[in-house]
């Protein structure tokens, strides 16, 4: 029973682990820069889901004040703090993605490729040309 609880009882955290590993795999193994970026996005989303999963309480509802339930008992609402923190984290992720895509566009315009080995080749050739001056 304990092993079952370890896997099924914590399924949210296993999901987070799977996303983390996927994201890291994408960032490290994939050779296309856009795929690295997608891996990074998945990695960030995993952390967001981790926080949200940690906010849940048993028999509790979303943290919007409900006239029927009232505001006296806090255990009837899930913890809103993690949700507000993750709003900020989502915005940070969007801004980072924006900067990253802008960089990718510049790289593509200058080197005409987003495939990392080709990019390294092109940069090495350019460096040799600079060195010959």
């Amino acid at each position, binding site marked *: 029973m304990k092993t079952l609880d370890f896997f099924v009882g914590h399924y949210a955290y296993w999901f987070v682990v799977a996303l983390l590993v996927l994201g890291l795999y994408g960032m490290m193994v994939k050779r296309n820069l856009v795929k690295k970026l997608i891996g990074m996005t998945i990695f960030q989303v995993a952390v967001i889901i981790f926080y949200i999963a940690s906010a849940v309480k048993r028999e509790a509802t*979303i943290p*919007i004040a409900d006239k029927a339930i009232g505001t006296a008992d806090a255990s009837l609402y899930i913890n809103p703090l993690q949700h507000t923190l993750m*709003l900020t984290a*989502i*915005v940070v992720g969007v801004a980072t993605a*924006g900067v990253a*895509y*802008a960089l990718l*566009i*510049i790289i593509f*315009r200058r080197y005409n490729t987003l495939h990392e080995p080709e990019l390294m080749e092109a940069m090495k050739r350019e460096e040799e040309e600079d060195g010959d001056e």
Partner: protein
Amino acid sequence: MREFDSDDIVILVSRTLSPFIMLFALYVVFHGHYSPGGGFQGGTMLAAAVILIRLAAGSELAHLQFPRELGTPLGAAGVFIYFGTGLATMLGGGRFLDYAFLPLAGTAPALRSLGILLVEVGVGLAVLGILTAIFDDLLEGSGE
């Protein structure tokens, strides 16, 4: 980039939908403290409404509606509204962003509610401006 190819059905549907998206986005911004929503969410939808027209009708036409140069200054203005609210509270005698000290008439809870609303409007404008600016920059020009 491929040549832009205009299509009447797409343009018609986008033109019809876009104002409703904006209206719903305004609803989301203003109801941030009563329901899921708020500045960032509403701002993203506002930007979606603007970008929809850019996608459907092409850049030249869409820039008549929302000019290219408007993006970044609108973003800066939105952040400035946020910062200005904080400054106003400091001038009113409290700490930065302590809305109860806004130099307006009202009880402390009402002022707090108003302060958050002002801040959310600022954030919504900022997000609208910046997301549209990102879209425009990605689409044309070399890293302006």
